[in-house]
């Protein structure tokens, strides 16, 4: 197996994250019928105790809604979709739904809409990243973990013996709607070796093509 430098591994991982971001952005744009602004993903390896602060950065003073999904496979971890508290109504407005009308199938609540969107975006992000390296994963159903609340007060670090976690934060915005959302992905240290091997295989295939 070829030796891939750590710089090349980091480049390949960032490329995969960009591709996941692009898939999620496209999914959001198609769902809402509008243009979505993408930001450069933030990627950091941190001690488990720093994960919540990193995920919640820039959301600290805001009331937010957040959905949570764990994912399992050779690469495992957790994902969050964070929405500003006003996002549900912005999205409902874009979709032409009346969240106050529960009498029809389209009268979904704002929470239900955000849960669906969160599932769509975290699925696209996580699958976009791991597909790149041919590492299939299974995503658990999403759960709403924060409703119009303080994210830092809601999130608690998962008990772990790990010393590191890889945290990816990807921000999306619809400027004319003042709509902003973040997908946060935490990949467990137990998956690092698998990820490195997958990146090495990816490079071998890339250079052979």
């Amino acid at each position, binding site marked *: 197996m070829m030796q891939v430098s750590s710089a090349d591994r980091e*480049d390949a991982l960032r490329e995969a994250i960009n*591709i996941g971001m*692009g898939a999620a*952005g*496209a999914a959001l744009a198609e769902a809402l019928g509008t243009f*979505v*602004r*993408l930001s*450069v993903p933030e990627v950091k390896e941190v001690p488990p105790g720093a994960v919540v602060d990193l995920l919640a950065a820039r959301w600290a003073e805001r009331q937010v809604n957040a959905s949570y999904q764990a994912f399992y496979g050779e690469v495992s971890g957790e994902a969050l979709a964070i929405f500003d508290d006003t996002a549900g109504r912005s999205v409902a407005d874009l979709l032409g739904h009346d969240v106050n009308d529960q009498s029809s199938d389209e009268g979904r609540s704002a929470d239900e809409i955000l849960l669906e969107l969160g599932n769509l975006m975290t699925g696209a992000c996580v699958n976009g990243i791991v597909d790149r390296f041919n590492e299939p994963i299974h995503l658990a159903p999403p759960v709403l973990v924060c409703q119009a609340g303080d994210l830092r007060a809601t999130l608690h670090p998962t008990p772990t013996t790990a010393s590191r976690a890889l945290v990816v934060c990807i921000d999306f915005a619809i400027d004319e709607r003042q709509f902003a959302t973040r997908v946060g992905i935490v990949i467990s240290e137990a998956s690092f070796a698998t990820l490195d091997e997958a990146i090495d295989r990816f490079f071998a295939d890339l250079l052979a093509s």
Partner: protein
Amino acid sequence: MMLKKVLPPDLLADVVEAGGGEEALAICQREPIELMFLDLTMPERDGYAVLAELQRAGRVPPTFVVSADIQPGASDRVRDLGALAFLKKTPDRATIETALANAGLR
């Protein structure tokens, strides 16, 4: 940079890399560029803003946008701003060669 791994060798002879949108603009304004591979999601100014600024100045070099931003309309937007092609990340060498041929650069 991943793209350099798959560029045809003859394109690697004289490569200048920009770390973000502002640097890309400065380079384009400073020296003639034969071919630019431009990402859309970048720090400082994004690729759309870079192309728009270059188009305003009448200085868009031959440009292939290479991006993971595949939302509806992205490809049309960059072509309207003067890009020759939109290549989805990460293009392989064959895709780049085809784009070069289609742009009359081969």
